[in-house]
């Protein structure tokens, strides 16, 4: 009897151990068959955009059971530090997003994989034909495609229609003279006898997001940072000088921007608009979502409207705005290029672009989406921004661009801080940019 009980116990323990071993083996095999890739994006770190991206990733995993995607949020200011360090060290996210600014540098340094072979398998030019040709420019080099465009928008002026109404402004400004007059009307003390606590506009002058915003002022005057061939500075033109002096005067003479504007980055500009400290900002489709997120009481989707960037009267230049674009890239170090390509294709396909508009109010780089999707056709914001795309262009697509832009920005800050006269600041910026471009 005792012997029999011992035997039963032994059999029980052996079966239990075998079961545990089998289960763990199955798990290992399952895990071995599952491919893990990582996706890094600065918008993963933001509430609304992050939620939308995570939903997209969940959908991708549902459609591709053997692939697991690890989202890796990264702060925008740290994005290039993190990516370039990791990629140089032979690691980094398998798939990642970039805006246009550093793309040419990434391509030059070999930090992004050539996607041409993958695109050829999809149909080559036929597959690419749905993208606006201009959106392929930043991601293409020597006829090789290094990224897939996702979203593109043009910069416009976003304004609070309620504040406009209260100030008795009946129409939006078409040129810079009218813009200045509108700013002056909107700059006031909201409490009788109190200090000025509402200003016309806040421009972004801090490093984060400066490039997209200030450039439209320059272009709105018919000027630009560089010559069309991107080989020399164009800051010595009368148009550039007029634009530069205009902004400095808006801040120092007209005082239509909040104090401390030199420190204003894109989030601060959104907060100013959200809390009615300003009535206007340079922005685009995402501004409505972002500003409303800062202050739901503003009822941003009702009161915020858009108008095209003002243009100097008589200017011949067609371009008066700047294009923003987000594209998706593959890490050349990835161990799972096929899985990574599947993710890139998924994130940039028609269905995801439509979801991206519904969730985040962003236009697509695909013609088939912008020209046919119902909600885009009905959107009051999309109608303004879509029209402006024709009058917008990218900032210079050269590796030296970040350094050129910083040289301009610090000189503009020096002029606003009265360290230099506007003329001297612009001259210094012009010389510094030429010196940067002349370097081999």
């Amino acid at each position, binding site marked *: 009897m005792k012997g029999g009980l011992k035997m039963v116990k032994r059999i029980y323990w052996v079966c239990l151990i075998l079961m545990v071993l089998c289960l763990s083996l199955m798990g290992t095999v399952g895990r071995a068959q599952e491919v893990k890739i990582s996706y890094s994006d600065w918008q993963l770190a933001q509430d609304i955009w992050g939620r939308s991206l995570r939903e997209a990733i969940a959908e991708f995993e549902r459609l591709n059971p053997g692939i697991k995607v690890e989202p890796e949020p990264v702060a925008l200011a740290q994005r290039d530090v993190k990516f370039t*360090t990791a990629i140089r060290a032979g690691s980094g996210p398998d798939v990642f997003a970039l805006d246009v600014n550093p793309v040419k540098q990434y391509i030059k340094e070999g930090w992004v994989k050539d996607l041409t072979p993958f695109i050829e398998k999809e149909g080559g030019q036929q597959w690419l034909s749905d993208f606006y040709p201009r959106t392929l420019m930043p991601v293409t080099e020597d006829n090789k495609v290094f990224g897939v465009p996702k979203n593109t928008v043009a910069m416009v002026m976003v304004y609070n229609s309620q504040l406009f109404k209260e100030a008795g402004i009946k129409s939006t400004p078409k040129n810079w003279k009218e813009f200045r007059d509108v700013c002056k009307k909107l700059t006031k003390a909201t409490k009788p006898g109190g200090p000025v606590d509402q200003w016309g506009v806040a421009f972004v002058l801090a490093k984060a997001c400066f490039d997209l915003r200030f450039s439209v002022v320059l272009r709105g005057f018919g000027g630009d940072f560089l010559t069309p061939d991107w080989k020399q500075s164009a800051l010595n033109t009368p148009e550039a000088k007029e634009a530069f002096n205009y902004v400095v005067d808006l801040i120092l003479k007209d005082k239509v921007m909040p*104090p401390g504007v*030199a420190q204003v980055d894109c989030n601060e500009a959104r907060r100013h608009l959200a809390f009615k*400290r300003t009535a206007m900002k340079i922005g685009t489709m995402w501004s409505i979502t972002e500003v409303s997120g800062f202050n739901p009481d503003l009822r941003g989707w009702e009161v915020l409207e858009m108008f095209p960037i003002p243009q100097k009267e008589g200017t011949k230049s067609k371009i008066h705005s700047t294009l923003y674009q987000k594209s998706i890239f593959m890490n050349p170090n990835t161990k799972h290029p096929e899985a990574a390509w599947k993710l890139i294709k998924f994130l940039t396909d028609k269905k995801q672009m439509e979801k991206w508009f519904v969730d985040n109010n962003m236009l697509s780089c695909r013609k088939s989406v912008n020209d046919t999707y119902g909600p885009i056709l009905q959107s009051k914001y999309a109608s303004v921004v879509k029209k402006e795309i024709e009058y917008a262009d990218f900032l210079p697509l050269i590796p030296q661009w970040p350094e050129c832009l910083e040289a301009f920005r610090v000189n503009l800050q020096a002029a606003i801080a009265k360290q230099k006269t506007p003329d001297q600041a612009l001259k210094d910026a012009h010389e510094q940019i030429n010196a940067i471009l002349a*370097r081999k």
Partner: protein
Amino acid sequence: MKIHDRYKGYIFILPAFLLLVGILGFPALAAILQSFNLMWVSKPSFTVSSYVNLMKDKEFLGTLLNTMIFVSVTVSFHLLIGMGVALLLNQEIKRRHLFRVIAILPWTMPDVIGGLIWKFIFDTLPGFVNAVLIRGKFLTEPIDFLGTPLLSFLCFIFAEVWRGYPFVMLILLAGLQAIPRQQYEAGAIDGASTIQNFFYITLPNLKYMVVIAVILDTIWECRLFGMVYSMTGGGPGYSSQVLSLLTYKHYFQFFNTPYAASIAVVLAVFMLIISIPYLRMTMRREI
């Protein structure tokens, strides 16, 4: 002593030495090679153009001047305030240990967090200082602390003085506690005043500690990055930019690797020169 006994010591320190070589030596060598465009660059080829461009770059020269002014002013204030607080905390007072903990607190804060806090304090519109001054009716319009070149630089120095003085204070406090009491008793017998005690007993005994504190603090401040990055970003213009920030910009924002490496090498050489008196002093004491 047998020959193999002599080498035992080297064998014992070998792992630590290899670790130091890996963590410090290799990156330093890599930076030097990068500055000559020889390593981890897209098209390696020996060139000194980075150093040549550096000497002609007005921004670098201006930033170098900023760094020298910043370091000398900050270290001076660290020494003054650190000495003062150390002398106070060396007194036999109630709850001395609590005051010591409070005095060290600024140093325990990461410099990035400190920078963000001071940025908020000195901010123009929602800033704490401006809010107090305006509500107290001292001002009608806010002061643009971080948007005015000189003020921005001074605010940055102020923030770093606040954050860094405990480091010097700790070194000097340790030195103060090692001074034999008999010397003060002898001074008291001879009728020495407090000031005479300080100049003829305290300072001579603290000589080495002051030199160590100043040198280490200087090296520390030369390398400072987090505070300036989060508080002013080097602006407005280049007014509060220091060499560490310039290196960061060239490496991570402009992807100008050889140039960034050359700035880092120049900074490292500068710090090496500063540390020579410290090294000589410690080697002399060991002998």
